[in-house]
């Protein structure tokens, strides 16, 4: 061992400590150590340390549960975390709970983590929706005002229901009497409530070969010996003179047309109005149109009260009310309503159309 020096002495020293050197080698080592007192002191200080005896079984890896994997739906999960989540979700079995409890009883990182898992449950915040009323479906039961609106709507609906057939019936009674061609000769118009067809008959007995004037007005006159009013007088009574059941008037070559609002009120006995052309010699304002003349004749003959006509206006007014009600209700409930009204030249309501989501009505008055 002549080669022992300060660089390789440790190997020899370890062999010496473990008893693997021969006597000669040991003497050489001791001689080297005698020469190097600092190394001898170091060796002696190390010799005083008692090396601990490692006991098997005490030093174990406590987090084996982390190494285990749970396979769920094709995915691998850490078994410990899986158990913690299962406990939090209430899905863990008794055996799993026991296992987790056993793990967590040991102080360490796992118990800390398990405690953290217990804290990841969200607590609801006090958040409320501010506009709940707007979410409610409209409910009439609990709202007094809305009850009234619904009542008004019902009245309007009833009004419509009853008005339509009444008006239609009234319309059906209208009879239009007209000539199919301009009158160029004397005509006799026969009015009757028994027929639904247009009652215009040309009576050739009154035919005349007289040429026509261009006047558009009919003038009350007297013919065939009847009393005749003076045409030149202002505010002349514009009625044809009646002789028994025959009325005679003079007219220009126009298409006579008359509308009889209520033919059921006409006399059952047919009346004949004879019309013949005349030459107008006075101002046209003093004359009636054929229509006016005939209408007046029929009204007088049938005894039609002017109130009957006003009722028709009332019907139109009822439609106006119904439209107003529907529009108001539509505004309340927020559904769109389209109202279209047409008036004649005199401002009378002639047609009304009400279109809503719920109801669409169109009526010609």
């Amino acid at each position, binding site marked *: 061992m002549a080669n022992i020096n300060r660089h390789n002495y440790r190997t020899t020293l370890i062999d010496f400590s473990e008893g693997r050197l021969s006597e000669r080698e040991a003497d050489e080592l001791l001689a080297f150590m005698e020469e190097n007192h600092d190394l001898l002191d170091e060796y002696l200080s190390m010799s005083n340390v008692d090396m601990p005896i490692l006991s098997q079984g005490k030093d174990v890896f406590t987090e084996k549960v982390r190494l285990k994997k749970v396979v*769920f739906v094709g995915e691998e999960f850490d078994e410990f975390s899986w158990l913690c*989540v299962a406990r939090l979700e209430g899905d863990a079995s008794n055996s799993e709970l026991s296992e987790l409890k056993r793990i967590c009883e040991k102080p360490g990182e796992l118990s800390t983590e398990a405690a953290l898992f217990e*804290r*990841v449950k*969200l*607590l609801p*915040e006090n958040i*409320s*929706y501010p506009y709940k009323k707007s*979410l409610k479906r409209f409910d009439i039961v609990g709202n007094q005002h809305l009850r009234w609106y619904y009542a008004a709507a019902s009245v309007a609906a009833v009004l419509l229901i009853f008005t339509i057939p009444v008006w239609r019936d009234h319309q059906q009674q209208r009879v239009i009497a007209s000539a199919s061609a301009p009158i160029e000769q004397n005509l006799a118009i026969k009015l009757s409530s028994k027929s639904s067809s247009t009652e215009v008959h040309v009576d050739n007995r009154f035919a005349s070969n007289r040429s026509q004037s261009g006047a558009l007005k009919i003038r009350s006159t007297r013919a065939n010996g009847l009393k005749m009013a003076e045409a030149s007088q202002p505010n002349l009574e514009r009625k044809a003179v009646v002789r028994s059941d025959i009325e005679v008037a003079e007219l220009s070559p126009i298409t006579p047309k008359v509308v009889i609002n209520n033919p059921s009120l006409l006399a059952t006995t047919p009346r004949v109005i004879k019309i013949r052309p005349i030459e107008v010699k006075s101002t046209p304002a003093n004359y009636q149109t054929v229509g006016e003349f005939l209408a007046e004749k029929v009204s007088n003959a049938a005894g039609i009260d002017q109130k009957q006509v006003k009722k028709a206006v009332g019907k139109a007014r009822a439609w106006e009310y119904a439209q107003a009600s529907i529009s108001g209700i539509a505004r309340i409930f927020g559904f769109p309503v389209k109202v279209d009204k047409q008036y004649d030249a005199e401002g009378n309501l002639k047609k009304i159309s009400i279109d809503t989501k719920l109801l669409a009505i169109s009526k010609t008055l």
Partner: protein
Amino acid sequence: MDLYADNVYRFILKNIKDEDKAKDVVQDSFEKLWVKVGEVSFEKSKPYLFSIAYHTMIDLIRKEKRLVGMEAAPSEDMSHSEHYSDINELLHRAVQQLPEIQRNVILLRDYEGYSYEEIGEITGLNESQVKVYIYRARVFLKTYIGSLEMVI
């Protein structure tokens, strides 16, 4: 209805973090519910309402994503520059970091107490998927608050 409105509103608000849009979603959801009210039983009305709200919200989110286009998505890092004194506040912050589907299932689970099956009906997932998403969300939340506690 009062209770459901709050629940739906809370669920949506926690998802999209915009009060006005959340209110719109609630309004739309109830309108759709009323349209179908004759076809839905009383017992099923709440899950049905949530389902409508969920899909309405998803539609809204997708629509907005389309509008935003290539705008950068919010980062999901776990840095904590803010200070929290309340664990619940911290958790809600963490919930916002969750992926959308995980956030939805965890909110439905914790806020509304829905079962896996009910959450599946609302979100269109099966029970296993719901369970997995909940697991992932829980682990994320645990890690999130754990890392913050280490910082504190």
